[in-house]
């Protein structure tokens, strides 16, 4: 869920370090530092591999993920089914490969939506201040007053189970964290001299927001988003596991785990592999996010 160890203040500082127009020049240094960290390289490799598998799923998968095969029901691993077959004789490896599309894809889309909404609200609240800020932040306060899963669960409950509704529920709940962090960053940048100068030479608000504020906010957002991609994946798969998200025969990993529940003693491969896939993917996201944070925010460094 929400990782409370992500410090808005620390990220704000990272953003502040990154402004002053030096961000472009720092890119090289940043890349060097990032690549020196072996955990970052491991994380990137994992993420890249999973992304590749997701994109190339129809080519890589040895079999059709929804092909039912009565002769292979609950088959253990063999040369034909490397990771075994499920209760309908479907090839587990092929389902996992296709599942990468669903699991990574939904997490990616949901996180992107969350980031876009969070940046928009945060920038507007932070830049304009006053009544707009008050109203937006009171909405944020109320939404933050719920444990995130409670509200997402309730929204899905009201809309009815489906993967689309799970994403709606997650996005509706999750943008508030970003809005808060972005607002804080914006407020800290608003009184900078270059923003004042921009005002003085008559730049319109949208120009200041898009040309001067947004580029300085983006690096921090990327860190937050990478750190939370893993959490988002866990949450969406979790709701699918409960039967609220992806519906059969969609090979989403959480839904695959749910499907394997009745057989977890007789045929544990139905649950072991999808869980392993989720774990490795999330480890990848977390490693990349942690390293990005270390590089962008030296204060958090070990």
């Amino acid at each position, binding site marked *: *869920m*929400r*990782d*409370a*160890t992500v410090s808005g203040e620390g990220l704000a500082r990272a953003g502040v370090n990154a402004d002053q127009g030096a961000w472009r020049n720092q890119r090289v240094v940043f890349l060097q530092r990032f690549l020196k960290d072996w955990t970052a390289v491991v994380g990137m490799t994992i993420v890249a591999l999973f992304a590749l598998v997701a994109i190339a799923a129809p080519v890589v998968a040895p079999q059709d993920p929804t092909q039912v095969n009565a002769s292979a029901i609950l088959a253990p691993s063999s040369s034909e089914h490397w990771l075994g077959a499920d209760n309908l004789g479907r090839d587990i490896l092929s389902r996992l490969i296709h599942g990468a599309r669903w699991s990574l894809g939904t997490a990616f889309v949901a996180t992107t939506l969350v980031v876009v909404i969070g940046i928009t609200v945060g920038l507007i609240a932070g830049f304009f201040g006053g009544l707009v800020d008050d109203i937006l932040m*009171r*909405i944020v*306060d*109320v*939404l933050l*007053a*719920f*444990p*995130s*899963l*409670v*509200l997402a*669960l*309730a*929204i*899905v*409950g*009201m*809309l*009815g*189970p489906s993967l689309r509704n799970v994403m709606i529920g997650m996005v509706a709940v999750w943008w508030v964290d970003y809005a808060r962090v972005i607002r804080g960053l914006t407020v800290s940048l608003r009184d900078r001299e270059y923003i004042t100068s921009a005002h003085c030479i008559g730049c319109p608000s949208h120009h200041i927001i898009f040309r001067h504020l947004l580029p300085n906010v983006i690096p921090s957002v990327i860190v937050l988003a990478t750190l939370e991609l*893993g959490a988002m994946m*866990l949450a969406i*798969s*979790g709701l699918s*596991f*409960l*039967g*609220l998200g992806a519906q059969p025969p969609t090979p989403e990993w*959480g839904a695959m*785990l749910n499907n394997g*529940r009745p057989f*977890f*003693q007789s045929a*544990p491969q139905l*649950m072991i592999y*999808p*869980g392993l896939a*989720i*774990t490795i993917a*999330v*480890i990848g996201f*977390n*490693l990349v996010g942690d390293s990005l944070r270390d590089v962008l925010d030296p204060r*958090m460094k*070990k």
Partner: protein
Amino acid sequence: MTRYLIRRLVYLIPIWLGISFVAFSLANLTPGDPARLMLQRDLGRQPTAEEVSSVRDTMHLDDPFILRYVRWLENAVTGDLGTSYRTGEPVLSGLAQRFPSTLQIAGLGLALAIVIALPLGIMAALWRNSAIDHLSRVLALLGASMPSYWVAYLLILLFAVKLNMLPVAGKGGWQHLILPSVTLGLGACASLMRLTRSEMLEVLGQDYIRTSRAKGLASWAVVVRHGLRNALIPVTTVVGMRFAGLLGGAVIVETIFAWPGIGKFVLDSIFDRDYPVIQGFVVFMGTIFLLVNLVVDMSYAWLDPRIRLSR
């Protein structure tokens, strides 16, 4: 301290109203006409248009939104959150009855997390880059990356099926508590451990720590009295947030272990489209979350005299 408490309580009122408004608005997300749904459920056939419109009248569904909200709010404040479609019992008592079970595993899970996370986090900070620091890093990464709904089954396979030490599911003696609590506490343990470590590192670098070492204070006293007490302030906040998160996240663990708590109750209600229960759950958990935060704020003030005195 009392004044501080009163201030906090007053501040909670608008937030609670916001929570109630969100909960009420949620009901409007439901697809279809609630009156028609209710009639279908009660009659077991398609209701006629007259039946639907008469029920819409008695349910005041055609009134303006705000009016319906105020009417609902009046009831909610007195503890009337409606009745469950499924069981016919009042929603609030249904939730309240099951809440202690959830509290049990969430409380034990959090306690386990703290007992493991604090010492490991402190040791990792004291002996940076030692074996124990690396171990804590790996554990934290695993704890944050493994889905609880997967870990639960691994634990069941190992402790209940292979070793036959603990029951697979259900509610009974203390043995039934262990696996659900451990599963629930795992994620919290990981983040608490990392946070304790980074806060301890930050605090141990302060001047007053050097001063207390220089004046010859025993090293445990430096670490515990001057280091830990200051490091605990942010940790407390996260403990509170985590606790509320555990209560809300218990739905997965309760489903796996057939634990008769509030989460399982809500999940069953979702599949039965028992909307008043879902709505009540939001109000109930929102209120609990506010109270937990209040307790955290109070302990904050107790731990840090600066907060108590400055306001």
